């Protein structure tokens, strides 16, 4: 049986991962050659001949065929690519094109799971990523969906980790990996991750604020999920995932406790989370308003200006910020507050 519930021999069954891989193979092969040539041009330069060759690579016809139809696609014809990819995977595979700083295109092909019960679509497998394709936040990707760019949760980053986790002597099947990713996606990450968290979480990643990041995700999970539903979804696999693949001790601790909670305690959790969310937001604002000496003249500048002005290159300012005593002090304060807040929710609070 496949995921549609019909037997694989059914005329309208969804193509399996293996079949999708076979269908897309000529296109992926072409993309690899294109990217190799592009990198050469971008890094080493070339000649007029190379420019002409690049033009011909982009215009080259690629013969591909799906279960029922043959197509001729070109990288320079995005409509033909879309039509073919839709037909190859019935909308389960998405191809996103981005223009790089050099002006040349970069490609991202991924397998997407659209779940009616999720706010976000789930990217469960990266089929191809061009070198240099811009992914600023590993947790989210923006994909053009019905004419609009929509955020999707990028769970494909956990695929290898899940494969290792499920490997009990015999290799885990792609279906098993998918099943676990769907489960954590729908029950945990769809609520725990939100695109509004990006400034906070990216700051936490770059300025080493692990407790703050855990606290944000925990609060969102408590506030955006239905806890009754969540406690029914707790499985050993999910708990193992949260300790081995995506280390999130706070959410793991919550999910371990959830099945044993009384109803009133369960009801109290979102209420406490709401007030703690306000408190954490205030603490984070205080952290972001901390002034650090910056620039040629070491003028006092609040951290938020530096973060917002360098959002796509936070790594560059993180090194400079790390040297500041004021940042270190503010960081320690915020981390302490976040840790206490997690503790209050998990151990001392209603839980």
């Amino acid at each position, binding site marked *: 049986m496949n995921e549609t519930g019909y037997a694989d021999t059914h005329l309208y069954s969804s193509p399996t991962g293996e079949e999708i891989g076979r269908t897309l193979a000529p296109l992926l092969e072409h993309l690899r050659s294109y990217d190799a040539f592009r990198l050469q041009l971008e890094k080493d330069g070339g000649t007029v001949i190379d420019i002409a060759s690049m033009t011909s690579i982009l215009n080259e016809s690629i013969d591909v065929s799906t279960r029922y139809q043959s197509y001729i696609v070109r990288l320079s014809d995005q409509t033909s690519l879309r039509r073919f990819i839709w037909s190859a995977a019935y909308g389960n595979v998405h191809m996103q094109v981005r*223009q790089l700083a050099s002006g040349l295109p970069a490609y991202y092909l991924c397998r997407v799971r659209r779940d009616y019960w999720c706010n976000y679509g789930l990217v469960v497998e990266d089929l191809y990523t061009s070198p240099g394709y811009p992914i600023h936040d590993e947790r989210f990707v923006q994909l053009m969906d019905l004419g*609009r*760019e929509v955020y999707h949760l990028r769970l494909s980053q956990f695929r290898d980790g899940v494969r290792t986790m499920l490997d009990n002597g015999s290799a885990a099947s792609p279906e098993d990996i998918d099943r676990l990713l769907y489960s954590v996606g729908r029950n945990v990450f769809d609520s725990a991750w939100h695109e509004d968290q990006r400034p906070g979480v990216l700051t936490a990643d770059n300025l080493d604020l692990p407790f703050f990041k855990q606290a944000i995700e925990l609060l969102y999970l408590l506030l955006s999920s239905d806890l009754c539903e969540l406690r029914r979804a707790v499985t050993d696999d999910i708990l193992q995932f949260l300790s081995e693949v995506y280390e999130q001790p706070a959410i793991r601790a919550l999910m371990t406790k959830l099945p044993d909670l009384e109803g009133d305690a369960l009801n109290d959790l979102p209420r406490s989370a709401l007030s703690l969310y306000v408190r954490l937001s205030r603490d984070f604002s205080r952290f972001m308003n901390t002034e650090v000496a910056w620039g040629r003249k070491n003028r006092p500048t609040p951290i938020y200006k530096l973060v*917002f002005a360098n959002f796509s290159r936070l790594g560059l300012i993180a090194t400079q910020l790390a040297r500041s005593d004021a940042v270190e002090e503010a960081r320690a304060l915020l981390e302490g507050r976040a840790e206490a807040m997690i503790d209050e929710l998990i151990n001392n609070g209603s839980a």
Partner: protein
Amino acid sequence: MRTKPTKKRRGARRRARAELSRAQGTVTSSAYSYRRKSKADWAGVSLGSAFNASCDYYERLPARALFYRFTRESQMAVTEYAGVSVGPGFEPATKPQLSPAYTGYPSALAALAAIGQSAFLEFEARVPERILFTRMDGYLADPTRHDEVDSDPEVYQRLARAVTRSVQSRLLLEDLSRARRLTSIEMYRLFLASQLTMRFRSLPEIVESVVLYSDVLPSWEEFELHRTTRKLLQEVADVSERYLGLLSGTESERLLDLGIGWVRDVCKAIAPYLPGDEEKEDALSRNGSGHQLLFGQDEAALDGEEKIPPLDGLGPPMLFEPESLADQVVEQLGQIAGNPFAAFRESSIGPLLLSDVGDTTTAILRRFASTVCRASGRASEWEDIRSDLVEAILRSSAFSEGPLQGAAASGHEVTVLLGDNEPMSGALFEEVIQPSDDSAEYERLMQEAKPIAEALRRQLYPNVEDTAQVERARTSGTLDAGRLALGDVSDAVFRRYSFEQRASRRGRPVLLLVCDGSGSLRESQMATLKALSAAWLTSTARTRIQVLAGLYHSGVFHGASHPTVEWIYHPRKSLVSRSEAVRSVAALPKRGSGNQADALSVAFMLEEARQLAQDRMVYLILISDTEWIRSFSGNRTAAQEMFDFFQTAYDGSDGKLHTTLVALNVDGKTGLEELLDNVITVPEAELTDYAAVAEKISLYVASMMVERRRTEAKGR
């Protein structure tokens, strides 16, 4: 003893219940009982949702209303700060800017940046006397002479303009930073800083980075840069340091004097690096003041080979940002010594590639650029412009209008059946009109619409539903099956059903008001159109009829003109209530604009009405000057397209479409009299004579009443 709660306490209880239910995770809205909880359920609607396609449509709507309100308030604040009095009829000089909200920047911050951009541009438009360009007009006409430098005059003038642009923006930012309630402008500056690639590819980018953002960027001393880039950054920063220090202590009135000195000092600091007058043709290098620096061409590329420097490498900066990728490559290619094509022609693929493009480097590069544009540009016109493309545009046009402004428009691909159900496709954009705050204009419009509204003030539009009638089945012969002596036979054998249309009190019919707003409409025609629209909206305000009203013409989206539908009122898309919809009519321009695509636009609006009607009656009122314009390719004329469209629409409506055409400035026939239910012509002489129009409307009302009585009689 329990007392009856007061109104205030009841409100508090309701709020508490809602809060509790939110906290408990139950969804309060009955319309979305199956929807997952979202952030809006516990944190409320934020500005960031306004243009975030990941949010629910009905979450975006209130956020959008908030966004436009804040934008307007900030525009009013800067106008006031500029010394212009602001009244209720305030008309912003610039459109609300939306581009930052369509980038990959966090949505809440991006919305603030968009508000800041709108405020900045509004201020710039309001203070022509504070614009550095105006003050430095004489200098900019011939900066080489004023600064006594021997650089190429044309290059130096372009440089001076670029520097003036950056310094002017910096001065305006400084000026605005002193006003209260305008933190969004600083947010816009931070947003622009985040869009920089930090490659410093051109001279203007170097100047901009130092003058506008040097206080928030990481130190470039830690980057790997070409030595020319590093040297130029150092020079510009050294000169600017003094001025940046003086900025905060300078009075607003003296800022321009500071700016003049700043521009000239920066230009003079860069001048030694620019190509001299005699080297104009080369535009390559400069031997002056001991500098051996190059623009746009590395030493390695001058070794006599046709070598193109790395597209993404650490090259020297270009003099100016090229307009396209082809120009960039040409710029980087520079002047190639010897015969550049000798090797190429002799190569195995050379003749093949050159056969259809002509044997010039430029032709190859242009073909390359157009191919790359197709491969990495927008896939189709109706889609939102991709965030990476918006970011690229904003990078090259900081502190000026972005590609997305005004009301948020959505693109649609529409398929219309014409003639023998022949499908024709076209794309159009739709947006919602922002209501006017001009009370005087609103009052005037209401006054003009009054006689027509009074003529219309009867509920003319009953719903029509199909009712199954049971009839006795009779055979055609003399033998009546009903009289046959039969033992036990089901009644169904002798029954048959017929369907009749009857007036129904159940269900809400939809009144679709379609206004042609194209350029062919003169001021008087537009005034009548506005009065009629206002009258129809007013007369149906307290009825059960659902109203949908829109104007169609064309608008410019992504640099090209496209058919556009602007909703005056749409129950699911408008940001105003039904009673305030006339304010959107008041916001319509005084005369028509653009070219319309009649059949395409009317088809799209009718489809929207049908979705709203859900198999109930649709009353379409089309107000037009009947100067139709073709929507589709083919042999049909525009009038034929309209005729065929209406015919197909009637055929597919199952009797649930009633159409009235109000033909403005038409004295004779429109060609649609035979097909449509009603045609009201308003000749030129009666265009602004609203009493005469009201009389015609009265006749229309009378005919509708007769029609209604007939329909209702069937229902009894």
